[in-house]
């Protein structure tokens, strides 16, 4: 018996369009997987009733011209979904039900998809292992007791375990690419402004971008096509025509110049990462790309700059969770100030509090110039590095992460080591440029490893094409045994 959920999104769309399978059958198949996959804890909220109703409606009245006809999709629980609980992985929004739909999810539904459920994530997307979620750890389907990465850990886990045919996450400093790398899936962070931020619970507004997380590069192109586009409700949205990424997807990369930044060769990086990088270079070179050594001299300052800018914005973005208007309110306290203190002390987890404290500190008078302003200057220098590099190259190839997935609890009490996970992903958020992770190999423990492709601003098509090639030539197979179903 063939299991429909073994297929890629593109394949399922194809089968539905050919009327070989019905939306309701697809939906039921995923619901069955989700029921069997509870151990992974990748879902916070299931919306099966909505999904089944919508799938039946689709089957009754199908529109095959859409990009995602009758496709059930679960999304990271950072996207506000009309009438469906949206928690951002936090106690403070434990029972929050928005009366509005984020632009990005709305774009998915306009293309024929519907909501299957809301996926676990680090609290307010702050974390690299999904261990900061109020709703508990998520397990990496690749191996028990292993983190799926973060903050879009629930998304990566559900995707790799076939609990959703594709998904979307958000990426502020690597939150799509790192979990994609840890689970052997594809994840893309678009150019800042390509996808609307309207209706996404904000972490760090100048860095946040929504993006697709998929099993294949073709799926990634399809999903990006569906979610991207100008939104007048987001002042930072780019006003331009929608691209047909999936139609334009091709493996012809002849003559493309690929930069290899020497600064990404960090101390203590495992051999297998180095080997993976070499493998990537070889694949691209064989297909006619030109490999060029480049320098991004300010890379080493990216992480410290990021851990100033992101918490600064977060400290302000999270001020609205004060117990006054919606969400959790502590019953303790005899005046307004005490209500604030208790609500926020009880409602936020440790990592969120840590970042609010850091952010408040770096914006304080007397420290602003030394931290926030300096970090913004560093950010500009990092951007300049990329601008300069892109005068010589069309894309940049690096590893996605400095290591493979680690054990649950391994880094939980060591924030610095946790933050170092983002070392290769953070610079592109600071520069606002697109980057994606594509699975390309495994480490000695058989855990997946990803390669990162960084593109010019709005150069999504180029990196998708490069990724398509790496995907085809790297002979990476996910091979997940569904051990959790036993």
């Amino acid at each position: 018996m063939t299991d429909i959920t073994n297929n890629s999104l593109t394949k399922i769309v194809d089968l539905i369009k050919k009327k070989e399978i019905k939306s309701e059958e697809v939906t039921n198949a995923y619901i069955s997987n989700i029921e069997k996959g509870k151990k992974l804890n990748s879902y916070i909220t299931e919306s099966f009733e909505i999904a089944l109703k919508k799938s039946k409606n689709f089957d009754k009245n199908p529109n095959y011209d859409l990009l995602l006809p009758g496709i059930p999709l679960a999304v990271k629980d950072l996207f506000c979904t009309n009438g469906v609980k949206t928690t951002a992985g936090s106690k403070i929004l434990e029972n929050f039900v928005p009366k509005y739909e984020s632009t990005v999810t709305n774009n998915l539904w306009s293309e024929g998809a519907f909501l299957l459920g809301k996926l676990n994530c680090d609290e307010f997307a702050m974390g690299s292992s999904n261990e900061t979620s109020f709703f508990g750890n998520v397990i990496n389907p690749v191996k028990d007791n292993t983190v799926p990465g973060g903050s879009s850990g629930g998304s990566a886990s559900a995707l790799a375990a076939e609990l959703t045919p594709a998904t979307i996450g958000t990426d502020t400093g690597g939150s799509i690419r790192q979990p994609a790398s840890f689970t052997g899936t594809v994840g893309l962070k678009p150019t800042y402004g390509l996808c609307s931020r309207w209706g996404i619970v904000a972490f760090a507004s100048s860095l946040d971008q929504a993006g697709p997380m998929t099993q294949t590069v073709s799926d990634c192109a399809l999903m990006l096509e569906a979610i991207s586009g100008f939104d007048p409700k987001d002042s930072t949205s780019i006003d331009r025509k929608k691209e047909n990424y999936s139609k334009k997807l091709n493996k012809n990369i002849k003559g493309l110049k690929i930069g290899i930044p020497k600064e990404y060769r960090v101390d203590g990086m495992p051999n297998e990462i180095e080997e993976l990088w070499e493998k990537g270079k070889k694949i691209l070179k064989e297909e006619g790309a030109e490999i060029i050594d480049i320098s991004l001299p300010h890379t080493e300052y990216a992480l410290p700059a990021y851990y100033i800018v992101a918490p600064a914005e977060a400290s302000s973005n999270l001020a609205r969770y004060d117990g006054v208007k919606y969400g959790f309110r502590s019953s303790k306290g005899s005046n307004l100030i005490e209500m604030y203190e208790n609500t926020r002390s009880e409602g936020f987890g440790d990592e969120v509090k840590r970042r609010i404290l850091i952010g408040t500190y770096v914006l304080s008078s007397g420290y602003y110039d030394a931290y926030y302003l300096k970090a913004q200057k560093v950010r500009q220098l990092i951007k300049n590095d990329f601008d300069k590099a892109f005068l010589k190259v069309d894309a940049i190839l690096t590893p996605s992460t400095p290591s493979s997935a680690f054990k649950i609890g391994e880094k939980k009490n060591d924030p610095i080591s946790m933050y170092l996970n983002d070392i290769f992903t953070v610079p592109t958020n600071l520069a606002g440029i697109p980057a994606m992770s594509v699975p390309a190999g495994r480490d000695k423990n058989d855990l997946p490893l990803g390669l990162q492709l960084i593109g010019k601003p709005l150069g999504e098509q180029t990196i998708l094409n490069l990724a398509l090639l790496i995907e085809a030539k790297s002979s990476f197979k996910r091979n997940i045994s569904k051990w959790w179903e036993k």
Partner: protein
Amino acid sequence: MSEDKTKYLIEGTKNKWEVVIGLEVHAQVSSKSKLFSGSSTTFGAEPNTQVSLVDSAFPGMLPVINEYCVEQAIKTGLGINAQINSYSVFDRKNYFYADLPQGYQISQFKNPIVGEGEITLDLKNGTKKIGIERLHLEQDAGKSIHDLDPSSTFVDLNRSGIALMEIVSKPDLRSPDEVNAYVKKLRSIMRYLGTCDGNMQEGSLRADVNVSVRKEGDKKLGTRCEIKNVNSIKFMQMAIEHEAKRQVELLESGESIVQETRLFDTKKNETRSMRSKEDAHDYRYFPDPDLLPLNLDKHLIEKIKKDLPELPDQKKERFVKEYFLSTYEANVLVSEKEVAAFFEEVIKTAEKKLATNWIIGDLFASLNEKNISISESPIKAKEMASLINSISSGLISGRAAKEVFEVMKETGSDPVKIIEEKGLKQKSDPKELEALIDKVLEENKDKVSQYKSGKDKLFGFFVGQAMKVSGGTANPQIVNDILKKKLK
């Protein structure tokens, strides 16, 4: 002009003290929708009925700038002769309060939309220029209501997100009178421009008042105190007087002023400490990452400049030049856009000098008496002109005109009708008047012979008698002429 006599000084026991005042005026931008959302701004709606998801800061909501509010700020900037900054930035001012849903106010800190400018005040002893430091756009907060329930505070977010212009003056003001003139002038300019309705009762115009004192002749500024959120000119003046005296008393008794924020208690007529500099909020300003910097197109600024209406100062100049009014008259007539329009409407048909006197005199007195504005006046420009024309054509006498006006100010009726109904029409027919005068002379033969023998002063007596007999309706000019002839 000897300035010293009019100088406002506080007499201490040891010294005379000069008061230095700077104002931060918060003017609500006249706009149908809020600064960053589409919600309505209508005053007086049911609580929390004009609140969008953005105004109430729901998760994932983003601000989008209201271009009309930007244009209003530019217009105001041009109206106060200020530099318009083609690059400005919205910052977040972070603090917690129940009626501040975002946990921050979107304002402009380092790069305001409008830079330095100036306003000319018309004072009793001449004009004075007051420097403007800056004008920036910001969001208003909601309203906390503490007196509806003994144990809870209610929050109304209708005001949350409404656009305000904060207009900061330089410390150029020196007396409560100057503050009065400054606020009125600023208000007048904004009302001319249509950028703020200036309605202080509805809170459309409020101010933070910075006050310091220094010994007369000192150049160095004293330590200032900021009196927060004063919402009438009278209260501003009272607060300044009280605060200046308090500071003088402290300084003369050898104490120093602590820089702090104070509140004016309108009932007790005193200012109270709210928080000292040490307790001042650290607002952690930083550029709002949800909004791009505001880059203004030069053409837009030019276009707004071109379409600017005539402003009070220009109108005043024109009134003096075109209508030969005194500076004082012109100032009074241009202070309100509606008054100036009323005046110009009246003088389309009526004589200027007479119109000026009647509007500034009787009409203003009647409006003040009823405490209404000119737009609410029962007497419209057409009727006012008609009354004035009745005087200058000789239809009625000045005295009769006062009587007609008394009716008009209650009913607003057509003066010609009132004149007819009351029989106030002036007798100007020489034959009729001649008969009347003959009768007067006949009855006062003795006085006539006294006059003829040199008692010139009696002329007035005959005029008076003629008027009396006519019941006040005789045209005094014609009576004069006839009498002169007859008594030759």
